[in-house]
């Protein structure tokens, strides 16, 4: 099994987010960068499939120099190889430009399963996995809570849907993405961390991937961020006081007469 995991380095979800002076991106100074939380489930799933079926795991990221740390974490978890497509202004690339770069590299590698976290936390586009499936002409099964290989090239893919669990039958090679709850990602062991330091990270430039800078970043994108803003503050609320019975009556009356939602 050739398993490829695409990851993204993102600001920690607990971070306070500040808008950069350009108003088009966020200020990354003092923000801790981590592997996007959903991607950890994809890394774990790939490791488990390899443990069960054998094969090789390769993690890929498209990102700035700093993203090397995220790749190192995946190697420490037990991933075999890492590829870093270096581009400092990667965050100005939209999903389309990002998917094109990643697809061009994946195309040159053997692949049975391409795994993603369901979304990169932050930009929250949820677009790259399905775009890569289209660009590589592969089937997709996304936002999975369980993945089960039933034959060498066939799997059952489980995802949450309204009122239950949807079960898809999917032929490999394929693109999948992982939802929280799919597994419990392992922590890197000390031995893993030491071993990861020695594993090489293959660095690729845009030229190596056959791209010019004009084909990525803002100029290669179809969706541009024109402005970031802080959502309008919510109006001051009312704290209701009194005996439990009274406050509940007050609340229901307000919901009925003022908010008109009951």
């Amino acid at each position: 099994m050739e398993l490829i995991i695409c990851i993204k380095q993102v600001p920690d979800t607990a971070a306070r987010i500040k808008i950069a002076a350009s108003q088009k991106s966020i200020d990354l100074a003092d923000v801790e960068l981590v592997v996007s939380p959903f991607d950890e489930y994809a890394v774990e799933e790939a490791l488990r499939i390899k443990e069960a079926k054998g094969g090789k795991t390769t993690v890929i990221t498209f990102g700035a120099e700093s993203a090397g740390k995220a790749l190192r974490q995946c190697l420490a978890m037990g991933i075999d190889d890492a590829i870093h497509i270096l581009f400092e202004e990667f965050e100005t690339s939209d999903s389309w430009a990002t998917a094109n770069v990643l697809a061009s590299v994946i195309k040159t590698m053997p692949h049975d399963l391409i795994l993603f976290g369901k979304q990169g936390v932050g930009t929250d586009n949820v677009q790259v996995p399905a775009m890569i499936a289209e660009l590589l002409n592969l089937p997709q099964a996304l936002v999975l809570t369980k993945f089960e290989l039933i034959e060498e090239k066939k799997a059952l893919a489980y995802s949450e849907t309204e009122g239950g669990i949807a079960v898809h039958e999917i032929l490999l090679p394929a693109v999948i993405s992982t939802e929280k709850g799919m597994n419990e990602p392992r922590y890197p062991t000390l031995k893993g961390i030491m071993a990861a330091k020695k594993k090489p990270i293959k660095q690729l430039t845009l030229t190596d991937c056959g791209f010019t800078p004009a084909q990525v970043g803002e100029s290669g994108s179809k969706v541009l961020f024109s402005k970031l803003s802080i959502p309008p503050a919510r109006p001051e609320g009312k704290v209701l006081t009194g005996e439990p019975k009274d406050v509940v009556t007050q609340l229901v009356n307000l919901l009925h007469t003022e908010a008109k939602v009951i």
Partner: protein
Amino acid sequence: MNIIVFLEIKDNKVRRASLEALAEGRKLADKTDGQVIGIILGTDANTIAQDPHLALADKIYAGGDPLFGTYSSELYSAQLASIIEKESAGFVLLASTIAGKDFAPRLAAKLKSSLFSDCIGLSLDDSKRLIGIRPVYSGKLLAEVISKDSAAQMALLRPNIFPVVENPAPKQYAIEDTAPVSTADKIRSRLKEIKKAEKESLDVAEAQVIVAGGRGMKAAENFSMLEELATVLQAAVGASRAAVDSGWIDHAYQVGQTGKVVSPVLYFAVGISGAIQHMAGLTSAKWIVAINKDPEAPIFKVANYGIVGDLFEIVPLLTEEVKQIKAKG
């Protein structure tokens, strides 16, 4: 410019979120002298296409072939691409539902089109370029996004945000059959079955009313109290990450940054302190009610109405009170 609106079916009707997209499509059409063209895929598409709620459309493509009966990202994206090309559509709108989010990026890549995810606002600039407003960093910020270099500009619209035209003026519109552009043997990922959940429940992502519990719920069995309130309110049950990580409730119910983004009209935060990741998921809730014993809990800063008190005492009283007011009508 022609506008394509994907009209998704649920329970033999067009979903409300798709009717929201249809109304938004009508506005775009009126600004660009275009036609609104709906697409319905599913075995009963031809009957559903006659629903008078769809009279905002100028034309509807109905795909009633059995192949459309089970959702497939490969088939649905190929089908829409062929109609979009045939109609030289300038805009494509879809509801940001599970299916919409699943196949729209595939369709965008096929058409080399721009796609805005999860929009809460939509407008046009002077050169008819689509501008969207969408929450990023799960609602901590809003981004204005603009489309460029795209023949068909696409947007996924967050449910419960855009208004529906409840009773459009009756109008004749054309209904045209659309035959599958692909065959069963070419579909490599197909829905096999839906395993029904033990408990019938509404999906938190699209619910209009949500009753959510957090760390203050203290145990899994206490969520039955929230279910009772949810039942009288016809609401979905939700949960904070703390409650999910404690194992009291399944992840499918989680609201916030590593859970679902929600946009209800009314949200009850019960025993939820309001961690930054949770509050981020709530920014487009219209009305928020907080019930918490800690008066300093950050949730009170975003709540329209707050009750400081013991939730185990408050919630049952609330359920009773809502029952009474509902009974009065």
